[in-house]
């Protein structure tokens, strides 16, 4: 038996096919670059072959210096596939590579991976992180690096403070009552509002001090007291004032007088976590202010003023409200006589790891270009990604969130990834940890809520332009003590803002000792005033005029009131401080001394002249 001929044909064809296909494979393979140009950064697991095609990067000099490619590679910032040796594979997503080149927002987020803290030098990320903190996002979501907010009012004892009608209006449309409110909108139905109301009405708060029967309040006196205590530094009154505390236009309408009276006398018992300092008032003054509030602080909002009436509590409804209170995460912002509740929403600690294709699509199937945009849309339309048949999103709508703000928040969130980077690459832009003195001094600083307005070591509020850092080297102790007891302005053209807290002499001594003892400035020496010879004073006066000091300061009856008045300033300022500021304008940036820099000799002369100025006679 012989082999059939077709078998030979099959043999020949398949042998030819093998050879041909293998040859073709070799031919294709010859297109691989013969020589490799790659950047290796082992710490970041970077293998970047971008420079096979691209020239070396042309970054601006500052970027070149701070982020040399040898240390950072290309893809950690730009994205794309560094391993690739072909154009498409390097730049675009494929089934083998899900992360294409980064969009601008993703690039900013990539900066935020190393630049940690609330104030990184990346505007988008910094803005986003500040918004994350100020909008209270961390009350529902655990977000690394973002503190849990504590600015919402305590809700225990709500029935003692406000009327049910107020709560109903507030939960329906808070903007109607307070345009600058921070409460997000939860899309509640009226039945849910009634349930929440019933629950809140069942939670008792600290007992109120009864309005004294032996005193009668005087609205006129109360109005004067509010002005004298400078409440407007934090509260808006008649449309003017600060925004640290709530607008007082609402106070008289919503609050029961006994509650206001108790708050004024015993602030921190009623509201342990408030930003409001504990004013040291007497009962009469508190009574006057409570009376004034009831007469005058009635905004035209259509809500009935507070009346002594209780919403009847139905236990079943209250139980329902309690459940709702938990489900909506109300306890993340509002205390109920205890600590804040745990975050109820998903942790956002690795949003940067997510691929936008893996995130839910909108109901119309539109996809977002990147994770920051996805977050932005979610923030603006929380229900945008609700799936048919699934539970609708419980996420509330944030008030006053511009599209750019939403994108900034998305960018900040996209900077969070699970994989930690090597410590050598991380930069923390947060101020160092806040340390307040222990003991009575610390209690006083807390009682008067100094850090709501002033900063110390980068922490605290910026209502006051004066940072307390270095104050101990700038100001005389005796002056600090008297200022704390009766604060007078040193800048004549500005409204007096430091609240009159009623600090006693002993308390003022304690606080002044703290400022002097621990808030010094290493750059300022303790100097003695030089003997004021006539020659020195004359030279000082001449230099004072020549350096242009009268442009801002008033001295000896002439000058403008841009800066603090200098007549009699020796009472206030330390000699070493004046001398140093004149030689070193950057000492106190807020002093706006830039451009005035004298030699030590000249500075001594000007300081001698200025500190020798007598106090102006009181008008």
């Amino acid at each position, binding site marked *: 038996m012989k082999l059939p001929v077709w078998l030979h044909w099959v043999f020949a064809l398949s042998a030819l096919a093998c050879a041909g*296909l293998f040859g073709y494979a070799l031919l294709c393979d010859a297109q691989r670059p013969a020589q490799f140009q790659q950047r290796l950064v082992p710490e970041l697991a970077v293998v970047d072959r971008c420079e096979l095609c691209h020239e070396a990067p042309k970054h601006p000099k500052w970027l070149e210096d701070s982020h040399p490619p040898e240390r950072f590679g290309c893809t950690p910032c730009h994205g794309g596939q560094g391993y690739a040796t072909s154009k498409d594979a390097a730049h675009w997503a494929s089934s083998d590579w899900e992360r294409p080149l980064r969009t601008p927002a993703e690039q900013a987020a990539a900066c935020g991976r190393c630049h940690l803290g609330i104030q990184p030098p990346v505007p988008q990320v910094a803005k986003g992180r500040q918004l994350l903190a100020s909008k209270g996002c961390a009350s529902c979501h655990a977000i690394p690096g973002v503190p849990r907010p504590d600015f919402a009012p305590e809700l225990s004892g709500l029935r003692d403070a406000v009327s049910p009608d107020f709560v109903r209006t507030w939960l329906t449309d808070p903007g109607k009552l307070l345009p600058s409110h921070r409460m997000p909108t939860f899309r509640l139905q009226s039945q849910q509002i009634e349930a929440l109301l019933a629950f809140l009405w069942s939670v008792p708060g600290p007992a109120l001090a009864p309005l004294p029967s032996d005193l009668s309040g005087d609205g006129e006196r109360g109005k004067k007291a509010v002005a004298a205590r400078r409440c407007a530094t934090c509260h808006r009154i008649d449309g003017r004032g600060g925004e640290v505390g709530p607008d007082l236009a609402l106070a008289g309408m919503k609050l029961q007088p006994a509650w206001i009276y108790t708050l004024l006398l015993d602030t921190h018992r009623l509201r342990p976590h408030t930003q409001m300092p504990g004013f040291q008032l007497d009962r009469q003054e508190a009574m006057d202010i409570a009376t004034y509030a009831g007469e005058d602080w009635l905004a035209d909002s259509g809500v009935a003023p507070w009346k002594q009436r209780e919403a009847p509590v139905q236990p079943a409804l209250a139980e329902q409200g309690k459940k709702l209170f938990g489900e909506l995460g109300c306890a993340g912002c509002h205390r109920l006589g205890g600590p804040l509740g745990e975050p109820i929403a998903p942790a956002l600690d690795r949003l940067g790891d997510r691929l936008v294709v893996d995130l839910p699509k909108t109901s119309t199937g539109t996809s977002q270009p990147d994770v920051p945009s996805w977050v932005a849309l979610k923030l603006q339309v929380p229900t945008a990604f609700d799936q048919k048949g699934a539970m609708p999103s419980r996420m509330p709508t944030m008030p006053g969130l511009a599209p750019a703000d939403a994108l900034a928040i998305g960018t900040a969130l996209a900077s969070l990834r699970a994989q930690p980077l090597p410590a050598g690459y991380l930069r923390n832009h947060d101020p160092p940890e806040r340390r307040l003195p222990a003991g009575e001094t610390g209690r006083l600083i807390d009682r008067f809520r100094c850090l709501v307005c002033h900063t110390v070591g980068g922490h605290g509020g910026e209502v006051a332009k004066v940072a307390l850092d270095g104050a101990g080297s700038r100001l005389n102790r005796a002056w600090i003590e008297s200022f704390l007891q009766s604060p007078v302005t040193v800048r004549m053209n500005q409204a007096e803002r430091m609240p009159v807290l009623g600090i006693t002499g002993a308390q003022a001594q304690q606080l002044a000792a703290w400022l002097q003892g621990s808030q010094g400035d290493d750059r300022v020496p303790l100097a003695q005033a030089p003997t004021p010879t006539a020659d020195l004073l004359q030279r000082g006066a001449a230099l004072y005029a020549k350096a242009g000091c009268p442009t801002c300061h008033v001295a000896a009856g002439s000058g403008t009131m841009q800066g603090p008045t200098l007549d009699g300033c020796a009472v206030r300022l330390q000699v070493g401080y004046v001398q140093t500021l004149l030689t070193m304008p950057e000492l106190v940036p807020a002093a706006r001394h830039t451009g005035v820099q004298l030699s030590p000799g000249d500075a001594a002369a000007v300081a001698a002249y200025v500190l020798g100025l007598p106090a102006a006679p009181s008008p």
Partner: protein
Amino acid sequence: MLNWLKSIWNSLWRVGWPRDERASVKAMLSSLLLHLHPPKIRPESLKFRATWAAGLVSLVLALQLTVTGIYLMFYYIPHPDAAWRSMKDLAFVVPLGTLTRNAHRWAAHAMVAIVTVHMLRVYMASGYKGSRQANWVAGVALWFLTLALSFTGYLLPWDQLAYWAVTVGSNMAAAVPLVGDHFRQLILGDRSVGESALLRFYVLHCVALPAILFLIVGFHLFRVRKDGGLVVSEHAPGGGRGDEGHKLVPAWPHLVYRELIVTLVVTATLLALALWLQAPLEAEADPSRTPNPAKAPWYFLGVQELAHYSAFWGGVFVPAATLLGLALLPYLDTHAEGVGRYLPKERRIAQALFAALLLFMAVTTVVGTLFRGPAWALMWWPK
């Protein structure tokens, strides 16, 4: 000089190129590679329908997997920090790296399928009866080893696909009652897929399992030869006794040449597949990012589909019972009727049982592969 070289060449062969039938028989008996063949063979056994060439294709694929696998081993680093990156280097830097990897991948998938087809054909022809009982068991072992090799190799690229497929697979192993957790611990060296699992899978895939596989392949081929080649029907000329009263042809060249051709066709097909079908490589394995759904390799998706209904019954009992049933089959079904024919009337029950099992496997695998979406929910439009 030429004569000297010629003498070296001739020293390799015990007999020269066979010129006649007698010489070809001698050649078959005297060569290491060829002596696994019978010197003469029934012409019917040469027909495609007699074997579907499935056993030979399986062997060719196994050899090609060995060759490509060794090349991949030159570049592959079995450590979580480096494994995925070495895949990237294979894709972009190593000469013929992509081709080799693609070929290895597709040959592995094909081998799972072809070995199954081989087993199916032998079942249909009752090739597991009489003296062939033990060889069927060896075949079942080889089928299992093929799956094990494919599964261990699946992890090595250390991408999301690999990581989660093996996580799903090892979780199914953990559903074994009582010893499940220990069993998984044994496979993974840990409670989850990680560094030690990668090393274990690597050693199993590249050393232990291939060694066992080729040992059993040797036994398997030896027994085919000793048990008289293909099973022959009693209706065939010669009364089913194979080599008596019937004209046989020499295995050289009739069998050997055909084997060579099959090898070439398989090679060409594999090259074509490797050139135009890219083996997937997803993002680097990330234990914190679970794909939804996480799916096992396709040949385990039937089991995963069953495990979705019950981890023990679907994920453990049914596969174990199937494997045990297959292994015991030659000792349970010893009827001699219908041997050597594909669809004999005498074996309707066996055929029905087998068809049912096959259909069941096919349906569950297809459903698991194509019609299961996120959270293992049914989806009617395959993605």
